[in-house]
């Protein structure tokens, strides 16, 4: 029974992460793209918060690597940032879950800013910064949509505490 729940949970997580990646990469006109929340990273955050034992650093790594491959950025930079993000959120999941949605949204915004800053640092270090100031908008928009996202059903999970 436990095993089946785990498996089902993994499927749901995998599919929603893939969907997040697709949504984040869907080509949009530049003006709209700047206002698009970083869906893939939000999904990593969501699952790291809701099911830290099923979706942890590994899922962050996988999503980040997919972004790297698709965008042609240096392999591993998004993967590193997303892994760290998933780790931090996973460590603090009990604390974060009990916060009111507004406060959660603020913290998510901060986490996304941290993620973007990490990418920015890595890019600077590698000497190939891309994107202009609009890249920082993603964190803001992500924080705004978080209260909606946080209400998504997770389905039955084996580790509901």
């Amino acid at each position: 029974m436990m095993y089946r729940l785990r498996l089902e949970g993994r499927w749901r997580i995998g599919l929603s992460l893939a969907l997040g990646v697709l949504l984040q990469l869907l080509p949009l006109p530049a003006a709209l793209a700047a206002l698009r929340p970083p869906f893939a990273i939000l999904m990593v955050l969501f699952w790291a918060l809701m099911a830290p034992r099923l979706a942890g650093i590994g899922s962050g790594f996988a999503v980040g690597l997919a972004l790297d491959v698709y965008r042609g950025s240096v392999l591993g930079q998004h993967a590193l940032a997303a892994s760290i993000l998933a780790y931090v959120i996973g460590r603090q999941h009990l604390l974060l879950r009990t916060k009111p949605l507004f406060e959660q949204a603020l913290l998510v915004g901060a986490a996304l800013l941290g993620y973007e800053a990490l990418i920015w640092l890595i890019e600077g270090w590698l000497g190939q910064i891309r994107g202009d100031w609009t890249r920082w908008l993603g964190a803001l928009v992500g924080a705004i949509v978080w209260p909606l996202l946080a209400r998504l059903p997770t389905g039955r999970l084996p580790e509901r505490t």
Partner: protein
Amino acid sequence: MRLAAYGLICVLLMFADQRGNWLEGVRGTLQAIAYPIKIALYSPIQAWYSLGELLAERAALQRENSALKETVAKLQIEAMRRADLELQNTRLRNLNETTADVAERTLPARIVAEEFSRLRRRVTVDQGSNVGVYVGQTVVADGGIVGQTMRVGRRSSEIILLTDPEHAIPVEIQRTGVRTVAIGTGRTNLLNLPSLPLQSDIVEGDLLVSSGLGGIFPTGYPVAIVTRVVKSNSSLLAQVEARSVARINATRHVALIWFKENHTAAPWTETKSP
């Protein structure tokens, strides 16, 4: 602990990707996997374009048709003159071959994805290493050079455009023969010539052609036309802007070129004997 392991993997990946070619095969495979997804993601845009073409009005098409006929007539006349000029030119330069012959083989390719921002100007095309595309290959379109291949996957390749800020192409001012370097600006079709001294002889309308130095691009292909020359006393260098001959944002097709190795106009390499 697990974070440390994953972090180590990431750092190693970045290092290997940045500092060596060990990952080229891996990246090629991953790119091959990502390619169908890219196509699928861009299909709504492609569909939108083709729908727009379908719905183009009959009148507009007729207008375009008559305009095209006019152009063809004009071009035919010019072509007659050109044949004569070329003959003269060939005799004058005592060359057995013209520059046009430098291309051994060309391969048309279609743009399937674009990435345009102030800091990156790249496109992806639907030809890759399975048909012999190599890294650093010259890409032309619409009467001029547009860029070179940067990453080659199995069935797709990423092209860095001349306008990418990380790209530089050695050029020659056709009128005077002065050599310089044209660097991308990140803006559509605009190039920058940052290393010309104030007193250099350059005016608006000068044609820049590739100089063939650097071993990537061939000699004598049109690159850009100078659009703005500012010579102010506050700087030692002239500020020169040029518009690329090929307008990459207006075309969906490019061509990849293979060169005859020993041709005089082929890209110069150190291994090649003169």
